[in-house]
Each structure stands twice: as structure tokens, then as C-alpha cells.
């Protein structure tokens, strides 16, 4: 390995790109939920438009990591860090995709009157966004304890998911006219639950980075 200073400078740049990507993805997910609640079709369309930007950021991170590996041959923690950066970038890009999926449901629902269980999604959104921000904070500060505490939040999100899906299904059974929106909101619920799973993945990746061992947090 040559040029430690150059390597550190390049690495810092990739890390800051990842932070940009992460903040953008989390904000987009959060906004896409607001647009759902507010029946804001314009907003939902802007989420779809913004996805290309998120994808591009992920590609940029991948390209830079490939170059760093090719040119500097990092080992041990440096190499794990680069692998983890690529994987977290993929997690965040996927969260951006879920935001798009939610936006599409918003567009499908359009100006229809919302069915009552939609209010339950607000709590799930708050918890999921909290998880994502917390795990990003843990990653930035390399805080193992904060990363480990993500597991508990994920359990809570999973529990909410089960509860909301049951409530939605009951609503659909009781009122078949609502079935279409029941399906759409079930998908939204699923996207939030998957986003929370990615937060857990990121926590596991941080632990791997710091300890060089694989952790399973959601068992």
C-alpha cells in the first residue's frame, strides 16, 4: 500500500458521498410518506424523478471504491470499510426504490378518500425513519452500542407490520369496496418494514467493519 494520505483523503470523500446518498434516501422515504398522507401527486412524481439521482450516487460510490481497491490494494479494516461502503450504498439505493414504490401507490390512490387504517402507518414511518437516522449516526460515529440497539427497534417495526396488515385485511373483509386501497397500503406497509430491515443490515455491516466478524441482529 502506498500513499496513505491520498488513500485517506479518497476514502473520506467516498464516506461523505455515502452520507449524502444516505441522507437523500432517508429524506426521500420520509417525504414519500408525507406525500401519501397528503395525497400530493406532484410530490410523489418528484420522488420518482429524484430516483435517478440516488442511483447515480450509488454508482459513483461503487466506481470510486473499485478504483481505490485497484490502485491502492487496501487490506484488513481498510478493505472491509470499502466493502461495507459499497453494501450500505446498495441498502440506501434500495430504500430510495421503496420510496419510489410508495410514491407509485400514492399516485394510484390519487384523490380517493383514505381508509381509516392509514393513520397506523404514521407511527411505523416515524419509527422506521428513526431507525435509519440512528443507524447512520452509529455508522458515522462508529458506535457499536448504538448499532446493536437497532435490533430492538426492528422488532418493534416487525410487530407493527403484523398488526397493521391484520387490521388492513380485516378492513378489506368487512368492506370489499376498500380492497384496492387495502392492497396498496399493505404494500406501503411492506416497503416500510423492508426499509427497517435495511437499517438492521447497515447496523450489522458496521459491526463487521469494526470487529471483522459477522453479526446477525434480527434473530
Amino acid at each position, binding site marked *: *500500500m502506498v500513499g*496513505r494520505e491520498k488513500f485517506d483523503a479518497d476514502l473520506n470523500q467516498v464516506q461523505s458521498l455515502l452520507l449524502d446518498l444516505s441522507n437523500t434516501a432517508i429524506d426521500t422515504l420520509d417525504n414519500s410518506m408525507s406525500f401519501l398522507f397528503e395525497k400530493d401527486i406532484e410530490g410523489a412524481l418528484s420522488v420518482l424523478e429524484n430516483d435517478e439521482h440516488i442511483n447515480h450516487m450509488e454508482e459513483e460510490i461503487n466506481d470510486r471504491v473499485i478504483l481505490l481497491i485497484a490502485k491502492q490494494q487496501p*487490506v*484488513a*479494516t*481498510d*478493505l*472491509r470499510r470499502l466493502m461495507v461502503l459499497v453494501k450500505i450504498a446498495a441498502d440506501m439505493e434500495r430504500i430510495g426504490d421503496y420510496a419510489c414504490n410508495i410514491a407509485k401507490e400514492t399516485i394510484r390512490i390519487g384523490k380517493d378518500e383514505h381508509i381509516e387504517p392509514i393513520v397506523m402507518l404514521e407511527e411505523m414511518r416515524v419509527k422506521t425513519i428513526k431507525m435509519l437516522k440512528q443507524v447512520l449516526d452509529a455508522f458515522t460515529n462508529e458506535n457499536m452500542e448504538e448499532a446493536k440497539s437497532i435490533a430492538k427497534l426492528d422488532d418493534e417495526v416487525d410487530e407493527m407490520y403484523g398488526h397493521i396488515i391484520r387490521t388492513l385485511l380485516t378492513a378489506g373483509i368487512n368492506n370489499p369496496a376498500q380492497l384496492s386501497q387495502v392492497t396498496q397500503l399493505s404494500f406501503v406497509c411492506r416497503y416500510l418494514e423492508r426499509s427497517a430491515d435495511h437499517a438492521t443490515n447497515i447496523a450489522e455491516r458496521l459491526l463487521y467493519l469494526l470487529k471483522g466478524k459477522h453479526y446477525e441482529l434480527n434473530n
Partner: protein
Amino acid sequence: MVQSFKKGSASQIDASSIVYDTQKLNLWYGNHHALKNIDLQIKENEVTAIIGPSGCGKSTYIKTLNRMVELVPTVKTSGEILYRERNIFDANYGVEELRTKVGMVFQKPNPFPKSIYDNIAYGPRIHGIKSKKILDQIVEKSLRGAAIWDEVKDRLNTNAYSLSGGQQQRICIARCLAIEPDVILMDEPTSALDPISTLKVEELIQELKEDYSIIIVTHNMQQAARISDKTAFFLNGEVVEFDSTDVIFSTPEDKRTEDYISGRFG
């Protein structure tokens, strides 16, 4: 000290597979304490790499294994190096006997100013082999073993100096193989070679470990990572860490090892 292959595993090394067992080795050049309490076990049919910054003692250590270090008049040692369970410092251990078993390849290719054939036949001849037929066989086998037979078989009588640096180094390896050693010590064997020649020597090392035990000092950490089974990291005359190369280059235990392999010092 038994080193496990996989960190955390309790696997024991079979004593009969240990080539060199270094125990509490200390070495001084005059007042300079160059090696401090070295404990290392080198296993047969493996490539053991020794890495560390300049002046860390890695070359001194490898030169102690064939007692070449004794050529320095002010050298003093304590502790033991057991080669195949026999202390090489024992008064009745002949250095010639040791060096018949332990060959060495140096940083700069150093063929004799003789023909390719005579370079390889040199060792067997001084061991008393006179038969042309047997010498022919040894020369061919050694040159094949060093992966250079095809390149030189039609010009065995030309001077070894006429070959490229990479070829000369493989001639030196072939010369080493001709005495059928048990161990081959290599002191930065590719540092004077171009990348393609380096690659050839590295491939050769991989083939040679089937039949020999190889201990290589290298400044090139990527080379250690590529070709060795075990890696010892030396610093200021001490072994900071000795483990499987996989562990050393992925999850080293000691922060100094991580800092060194990551280019933070050295």
C-alpha cells in the same frame, strides 16, 4: 508457542511437521539487541513470510536459520533454534551439514560466472558426484523444478550471466534445488526483478512448497499476502504477530500489525 492456523481455533501442530522451532531466541550485534525473545514455529510444506519495516530483524532472523549470521564477528545469541528437533547452535552441529539441508536464495541473483550447467552441478560435484549421467539428471531435474528448463535446455553451456535477471534468479533457485534441500530460505528474492519475472518466481514458490518448506523475507506486503500460508510480522526485533496469512491480512490482532499492513508506518 503453538500458533493455530485459524485464529481462535485450538488446533495443535503435529511436532513432526515442524521444521524450525525457534525458542526464546535473542541476538546481539555488539551492543545492539537485534532479535528479542523470538518464538516461532515453522511448519513443513508451507510458505512462511516474514514482513516488517527496515531494521526490524527479519533478515537477521532468516540468516540465523542457516547460521549465516555468524559471519558477522560481533554476533552473540541466546536461546535455541531447533531444526528438525535438533539445536542448530549445538557445538557438534556442523554448519555444512545444516546448509546441505537449508538452501538460500538472495535478493540479487548471484549465479557463479560459469555455464548454466556448471552452476547447477556445482553443489552435487562438491558433494562428490562425478558421474556425468547422474549430474545430467540432477541438472535437468533442478532446472525443471525451478521452471526454467524449457528456456535454457538448448544453451546449457552458455554463461549464466547472459540470462535476464529473472532467469538468473530461477537459476539460483535451481542451484539450490540441486542439493535437494529440506528448506529454502529466500531473502527478498524478487526485489530486483521486473513484475513478470516476479510473477514467475511467485508461481514457482507455490509449486515448490509441495516438496520444500519455504521461508521468505519480503518487503512487498502484497507478495506476502499472495503467496504465503503464514505470516510473521517483525518490529524492532520482536515478533508482534504470527498467524495464518488470511488472519494477518484481514483481521490482525495487534494494532501495530494493522497499521503496518495498511501503510500507516514503515
